[in-house]
């Protein structure tokens, strides 16, 4: 059966729309249009989410996020995330390290309604020769006011799967 033009558009739209969360990111651009990305190589992230309790899929918060990083690494080439599990704790003030933490604030500011997690990045405003900008530090803060777990299968109302959010 021959597809109608509208159906072809619809299939394309559906594919692109559904592809977005699978890819899970887009290139970040700043006001001048330059792309921000890391220097090639390994990006070490310090995962400070704790190793207890054991969650529904048998992981813990830190190992679940570490598994999310491996999923990311399978999709990217020039950089690779290295997730080091560290003792649970808050984000350190400065030092340039990349950290993943639980907190009830975003560096002292409230998350606001409906926000589950926030990622912040610093980048250098000095352009590379190709017009891009270098990301220098990133942190991910999960809202500790929310209920978290790590589980496979259907999503649960009011219980957020940390791996799914981390993959986003």
């Amino acid at each position: 059966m021959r597809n109608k033009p509208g159906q072809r558009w619809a299939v394309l739209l559906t594919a692109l729309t559904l592809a977005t969360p699978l890819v899970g990111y887009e290139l970040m651009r700043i006001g001048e249009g330059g792309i921000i990305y890391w220097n090639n190589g390994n990006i070490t992230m310090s995962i400070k989410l704790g190793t207890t309790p054991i969650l529904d899929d048998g992981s813990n918060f830190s190992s679940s996020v570490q598994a999310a990083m491996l999923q990311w690494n399978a999709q990217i080439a020039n950089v690779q995330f290295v997730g080091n599990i560290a003792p649970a704790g808050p984000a350190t003030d400065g030092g340039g390290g990349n950290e993943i933490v639980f907190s009830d604030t975003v560096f002292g500011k409230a998350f606001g309604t409906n926000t589950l997690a926030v990622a912040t990045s610093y980048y250098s405003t000095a352009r590379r020769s190709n017009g891009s900008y270098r990301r220098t530090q990133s942190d991910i803060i999960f809202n500790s006011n929310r209920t978290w777990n790590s589980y496979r299968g259907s999503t649960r109302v009011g219980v957020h799967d940390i791996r799914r959010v981390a993959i986003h």
Partner: protein
Amino acid sequence: MNIRDHFHRWARLAAMALCWAGPAGVPLGATTVIPPEFPELVHGSDYVVRARVKQLVCESEMRGERELIFTRIELEVLDVIAGAPPQPLWLIMLGGRSGDRELVVEGVPRFQVGDEEIFFVQGNGRNFYPLYAVMYGKYPVRRDKVTGREYVTRSNGVPLRDVSEVTLPLAAGPAAELQRRLAHVEDALSPAEFSRLIRKQRESVQHAE
């Protein structure tokens, strides 16, 4: 059924599929937000204004060795749609430029001088971002280049045709670009109509009380 009907039908299906992907919300960068329903957006906001961005001022403060950079956004209020905003109105958000570095909160919409938008303000100064549900609280006003008619878009630039679309996941990247290209701006809500629906929603609870 014509092409537009097909598009609308499938666009809704695609959006619903994204909703089913999880209540964690849809990624825009890596900041994850649960999309609000329209009534929640209206009633959860401290105030709603149609305003133009007048100026942006970046300032930083040290927190230990970490430099936190904030942007203060001065708005010229064109219409108070709900609530009672202070005058003058300055919003403050985490992120901005200081010297040779910039702090960005990934996935949050930016403000640009001259932009005219409808803002659902909540927790200004208290929250890291001053709008309700972050990217779901910002609705740029655009003008049709052909007809001159004003219309409202979502924060990703896709025209808003109905308030029920407020809660749909916000596509990013190529999906958003395709939605923008395929959308018919003549179907989008005008700022006046959107404002009327906001006021009506706000009043519905006031009357119930």
